[in-house]
């Protein structure tokens, strides 16, 4: 435990980001150049925070009386969040101009939501988790309705808010029960006295309600109903961020909550819970995605299925599968943001050109976008040598290690189903004749975001060990 005044120093990434948010607000208020300055200011901010965190990964301490953990696992997640936000900001430059929603709030809200995620990832106390969760969620509710002139945006925002609040209600109730039975909000305390609390059914119910609340956030079946509507209705770039960094943040909390509790002797309740969630999510997500022709909606269902694959890792509950989930999240962030960026480029001004038909013959319009779209689809389908393959591989392998081979088999089968709708996009891109003529405008930012994500998806697919070793060393 470091000396008290040193503790603040370890929080530097969070402090820098907070100051950055305040500065952004001031820039917005006092200058007229907010719209031009903030994209670059935010990018630099995310770049700094992300890399500062990952560089200081080995400064792994519990500070503030054990309420938060810095370095290590939290650093890895900070990196994922910030890179996701950075890519989103880069990628959305074209999109928000196209829709005339180039507001400064957009950047400030993204910054705030990232701060919320970072608080979630470092929390080691249920109240801190809640604080971070609300900060992130409220930002997302607003971001979802960013384009207030469009009714679909308003609908998405409201639905998200209503159902999100509903889920939050359960989380709060769960926190109350856990606090009531343990007399503490410290996660460390739960771990240490788990066997003692375990016999108390109210404690188990409390924990389950917490897990259910976060199952909502990761978009797992049967708490997934909001996902297709919200993902489809929100601005595409926002969907990209919600479906990746938002999901990663919720998973970071699940990893903390389950942490060591599953390695205790009676994990059967949680394991069963996540096994069922995993099976339902992978199958429902993959199967319904087949019937979708709207790409955003298809990716929403795909996101449900991916939550299911990762939930397999939660059910497995060993260090290896947890490391696998973290790897999976990193991979998922890159491939999904890449895919959403391309969708945001193709779609027209008024939510047109979102269906598969608009992708017919994309190869002729833009060979680059066609190739990258195929790359992301292959990655999402989990075909080597893309990063998506190893994400699934590690998680499934973790399941086998925990004697949950059947769950891994279900996972593989549902991946098989999912190949159909992913590759259908590739078929449209390359083998169908164009039936619409339109111009694709892309700026440096979008090109950069797509190239970067594509490169990372390939890089982590060819050298999975480089990332996995880092994760394994710090996930405990």
């Amino acid at each position, binding site marked *: 435990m470091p000396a008290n005044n040193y503790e603040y120093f370890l929080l530097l990434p969070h402090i820098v980001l907070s100051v950055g948010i305040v500065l952004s607000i001031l820039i917005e208020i006092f200058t007229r150049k907010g719209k031009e300055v903030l994209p670059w200011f935010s990018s630099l901010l995310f770049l700094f925070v992300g890399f500062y965190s990952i560089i200081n990964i080995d400064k792994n301490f519990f500070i503030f009386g054990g309420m938060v953990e810095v370095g290590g696992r939290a650093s890895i997640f900070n990196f994922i969040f910030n890179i996701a936000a950075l890519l989103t900001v880069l990628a959305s430059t074209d999109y928000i101009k196209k829709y005339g929603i180039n507001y400064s709030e957009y950047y400030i809200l993204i910054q705030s939501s990232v701060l919320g995620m970072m608080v979630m990832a470092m929390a080691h106390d249920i109240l801190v988790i809640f604080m971070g969760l609300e900060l992130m969620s409220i930002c997302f509710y607003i971001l979802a309705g960013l384009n207030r002139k469009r009714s679909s945006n308003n609908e998405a925002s409201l639905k998200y808010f*209503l159902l999100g609040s*509903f889920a939050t209600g359960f989380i709060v109730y769960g926190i109350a029960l856990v606090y009531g039975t343990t007399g503490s909000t410290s996660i460390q305390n739960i771990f240490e006295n788990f066997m003692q609390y375990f016999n108390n059914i109210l404690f188990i119910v409390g924990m*389950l*309600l917490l897990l259910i609340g976060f199952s909502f956030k990761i978009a797992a079946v*049967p*708490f997934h109903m909001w996902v297709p509507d919200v993902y489809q209705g929100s601005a595409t770039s926002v969907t990209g961020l919600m479906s990746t960094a938002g999901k990663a943040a919720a998973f970071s909390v699940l990893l903390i909550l389950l942490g060591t509790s599953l390695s205790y002797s009676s994990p059967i*309740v949680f394991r069963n819970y996540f096994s069922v969630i995993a099976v339902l999510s992978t199958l429902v997500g993959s199967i319904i995605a087949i019937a979708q022709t709207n790409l955003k909606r298809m990716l929403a269902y795909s996101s449900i299925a991916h939550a299911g694959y990762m939930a397999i890792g939660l059910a497995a509950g060993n260090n290896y599968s947890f490391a696998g989930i973290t790897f999976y999240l990193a991979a998922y962030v890159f491939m999904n943001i890449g895919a959403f960026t391309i969708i945001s480029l193709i779609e027209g001004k008024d939510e047109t050109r979102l269906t598969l038909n608009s992708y017919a013959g994309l190869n002729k319009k833009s060979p680059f976008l066609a190739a990258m779209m195929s790359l992301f689809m292959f990655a999402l389908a989990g075909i080597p040598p893309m990063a998506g393959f190893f994400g699934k591989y590690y998680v499934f392998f973790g399941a086998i290690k925990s004697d949950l081979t059947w769950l891994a088999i279900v996972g593989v089968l549902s991946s098989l189903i999912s190949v159909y709708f992913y590759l259908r996009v590739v078929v449209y891109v390359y083998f169908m004749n164009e039936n619409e003529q339109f111009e694709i405008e892309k700026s440096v930012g979008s090109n950069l975001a797509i190239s970067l994500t594509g490169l990372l998806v390939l890089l982590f697919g060819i050298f*999975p060990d480089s990332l*996995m070793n880092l994760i394994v060393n710090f996930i405990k």
Partner: protein
Amino acid sequence: MINLIYLTVLLPLIGFLFNGLFGSKIKNEKIIGIIGSSTVGISFLIVVGAFIQTLSLPVEQRSNTVEIFTWLNVAGLNIKFAYLVDQLSLTMGLIVTGVGFLIHIYSIGYMHGDKGYWRFFSYLNLFIFAMMNLILGDNFLVLFLGWEGVGLCSYLLIGFWYDRNFEKGTTSQAAKKAFVVNRIGDFGFLLGMFLIYFTFDSLNFKEVFAKATTFPVTETTFSLIALFLFIGATGKSAQIPLFVWLPDAMAGPTPVSALIHAATMVTAGVYMVSRASILFASAPSIMIVVAVIGLLTALMAASIGLVQNDIKKVLAYSTVSQLGYMFLAAGVGAFSASIFHVMTHAFFKALLFLGAGSVIHGMHEEQNIQNYGGLKKYMPKTYITFFIATLAITGVPGLSGFFSKDEILWNAYANGSFVFWLIGVLTAMMTAFYMFRLLSLTFYGNERFDHHHVHPHESPAVMTVPLMILAFLSVVGGFVGMPKVFVGEHGNLFENWLEPIYKPAQLKLAHFGMHSHFEEILLMAISVVLALSAIYFALKVYTQKPEIAESVSSKFKGLYNLLLNKYFVDEIYEASVVQPIQKGSEKLLWKFADVKIIDGAVNGVALLIDKLAEQIKKIQTGFVQYYALVMIAGIAVVLFFLLFSL
């Protein structure tokens, strides 16, 4: 320089990417050619540097591993992407980059004006990249990566002129044939690899070979491993029964035939057997199989070569035959002799092919030697270098081919049997005959081409200089491996250099046979005399009395047709393997199993899922109250089960 060895792989890759991506936009052939050649040239210099550095090290430290990155580390399977720089890989590396560089230079002239100029050089670079991975890899998986890579390049380059016809079909068909036949071999290789991993729990060369001498492994297992690996080798190195693709591979441009289908890629099988020498030495019965297959291939291919009329076909069969010699050597435990022959063969066979290319170039794409004749005075440089290469391959004393072939024949006798030696010498006689037949029909005698249309001319310097360098190497290349009978027990530099690699295998094989120097010199003299008489006979027949050839061929019409049609092997395969598979695939697998059963099931399931999806989709009503209800229901179910499970 050893630590820089990864550059020898990286540079050709960069060359491939550069020419592959931007080549079509660069209109200047010089830039493309220089980039393509220089990447290989620099690689060669680095290999030379690593070679010199390794030579300066004491013998025990000459095997160095250069780790690049960890490739896979999952569940006990730990594969490092690492390169093994030792005597064997350096020897092969020198051959590949050295001869490869000369052929790249030659191609600058040969491919001049071709519309796929940039494509050609990018493929060639890709080939060098894959080949260097094959020989430098420190485990079976990296070797396999290169193995598949060279197969791909071979396919791409055989079908390089995809719009041209080749014999009865197209070049693409020849390319496909090569690819498919190689896949059969690769399948064997894969099985061998699985068995190795299963037995030794590793794919790393050093670990596997160390365990091979210490683990209690039955001879049956060793035999299976060696057999599977050897099947892989017969595919890549064109041995019976998988040799049929190599003659058709001549559909590719001639520099490709020289580089891939003579000097380097086809020797990959020999290299692999040699690398895994301890595994083969532990399976004596498979060693005999290797030797016999090698010997039969050598004999069969040489006899086919006697009557072929396409200049490249003769050389192709000659390559198959020489590869047979190399396997004969490996099969009798003379691994160093097999690699020695790989080296000398690379020199003279590359030279023969490039010379043939020069002739074809000067004769306006004519390849039939019956339409040549008297070209000596039109292309003197090509003639002299071709003549030297012919002397080398026929084993005229003093030239490189003599030393390597003699070492193989002597080992075949000393460690094998007299019959091996006898067939080997018979093959050598045939080799001498068909090579001088080729030489005579091309460069001597009457000019049989049409003077109005064909104006033979010498090739430019960019093509003839590589010929001269290769001719020089064909002459002196053998002196590093002089027979022990002349230079004493430790005088054979080549064998001394490679000796540490084969030590475990040699200990296992332990040849104790004693043979006198007299025996060795006598056998050598006999083979030389026989080869010289075959040369004399061939020269006599094809320059002075061509009617003898005709009367012989008409007298033994059956035999002649058998040889001309290559023992009908292609036809037999067509009837016994290809047709049944094709018919079976079409009637049974395609129209019944695939269309009815599999497609039916798949489409049925897909239809079902599709219908299911349409139905489930309807649950998504869009009403937020309904969504909340589903959530509540979910929570209720979870809590319900919780209460009942406690």
